[in-house]
């Protein structure tokens, strides 16, 4: 057994590339990629739109070790096509999840995605469905599927639905988790419904702090690769089941959320209901103070 070593250089998860995140997340030198860029498996559909391709189609999948334990890892590159799911991109993750089931290995998904890639929308949409099915199959076999959210593109659209099937979610303040993006809501329902240029509103409604407070994520971490690594190690330690008991608990948890917060106009109202003394200060709180203030948050333990 080789000595476990992580890169200990400070790295902003938000700013880092997909490959930098993998290098910082898993044990140093342990990562081996499947279908790497040298195989040039690029999107066959972008040429129709005269758009440039990327050698890995915006996702890196492979195996590595986390604190000595073997894991499978997928990481999206949010700067290429917004990290969106196309045919190849999605199929690489589908394959990795099926491999996880076959090899009985836990899997980490480093989300950084705007959702389905419109230039190959049908293929992307089906990839999302195939991935969700593969995640549930892996989870029913007792495996952990852990999602990490803190990239530039956030975790939107179909990506957010995939996240919802994970056994555990780790999020940073910068991580946004939402189905419809701010611009999509504004375009479809008007600026009165959602002003996408109001960045404070976007973070408050979709950002990591709010998601952690309502139980939409399980761990809240600094925007630091080492913090994500630590939380991922913890997440793999407590195994999660996926059965009818968990589903029933989730039903009760989500019903309770509607009863408790269903009338709220804004995230601040929800935070006040949670008993946070100065709810409007939440966005400004540093991580330590935020976690103390979040003591009475809703959580999804055994209900995800």
């Amino acid at each position, binding site marked *: 057994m080789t000595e476990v070593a992580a890169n200990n250089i400070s790295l902003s998860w938000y700013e880092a*590339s997909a*490959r930098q995140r993998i290098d910082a997340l898993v044990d*140093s*030198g342990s990562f081996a990629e499947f279908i*790497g*860029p*040298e195989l*040039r498996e690029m999107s066959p559909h972008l*040429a129709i739109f*005269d*758009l*440039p*391709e*990327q*050698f*890995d189609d915006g996702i890196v999948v492979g195996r590595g070790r986390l604190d000595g334990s073997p894991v499978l890892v997928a990481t999206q*590159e949010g*700067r*290429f096509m917004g990290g969106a799911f196309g045919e190849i991109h999605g199929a690489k993750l589908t394959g990795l999840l099926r491999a996880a089931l076959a090899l009985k290995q836990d899997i980490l998904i480093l989300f950084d995605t705007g959702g389905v890639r419109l230039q190959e929308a049908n293929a992307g949409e089906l990839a999302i469905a195939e991935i969700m099915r593969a995640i549930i199959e892996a989870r029913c076999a007792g495996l952990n599927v852990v999602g990490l959210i803190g990239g530039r593109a956030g975790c939107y659209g179909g990506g957010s639905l995939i996240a919802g099937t994970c056994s555990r979610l780790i999020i940073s303040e910068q991580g946004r988790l939402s189905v419809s993006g701010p611009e999509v809501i504004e375009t479809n329902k008007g600026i009165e419904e959602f002003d996408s240029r109001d960045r404070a509103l976007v973070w408050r409604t979709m950002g990591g702090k709010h998601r952690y407070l309502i139980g939409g994520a399980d761990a809240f971490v600094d925007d630091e690769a080492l913090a994500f690594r630590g939380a991922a190690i913890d997440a793999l330690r407590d195994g999660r089941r996926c059965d009818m008991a968990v589903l029933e608990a989730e039903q009760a948890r989500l019903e309770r959320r509607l009863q408790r917060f269903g009338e709220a106009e804004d995230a601040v109202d929800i935070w006040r209901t949670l008993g946070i003394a100065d709810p409007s200060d939440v966005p400004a709180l540093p991580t330590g103070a935020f976690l103390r203030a979040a003591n009475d948050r809703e959580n999804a333990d055994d209900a995800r």
Partner: protein
Amino acid sequence: MEKLSFRLTAPRSAGGSRAQAIVGVVASGNLEVLLERNLPADVCTIDIATAAHGFGMVWDAVVRDFVARRSAGGLRISINDGGARPDTVALRLAQGVRKIEEPER
């Protein structure tokens, strides 16, 4: 997409022993550079797919300067370009040869 190909004689061969390296990302004003060590030590090829049409002369100048000044012999270099400026291209190429020289872990 516009495709460009260069095959140049390289005065110095690439250092290190890594078989390949990749740097950058395909985004607006950015590019990715894939380097593979699989050519004779005095040859460097550079294949470019670019979203910005009509800049063949600029690419010609940038890649000739790169091969003349850096250690690029033996490298097959492939570029997907999202319309990067010449200085960004030069930076990524330099990052690429540095990366393929890094010791293997």
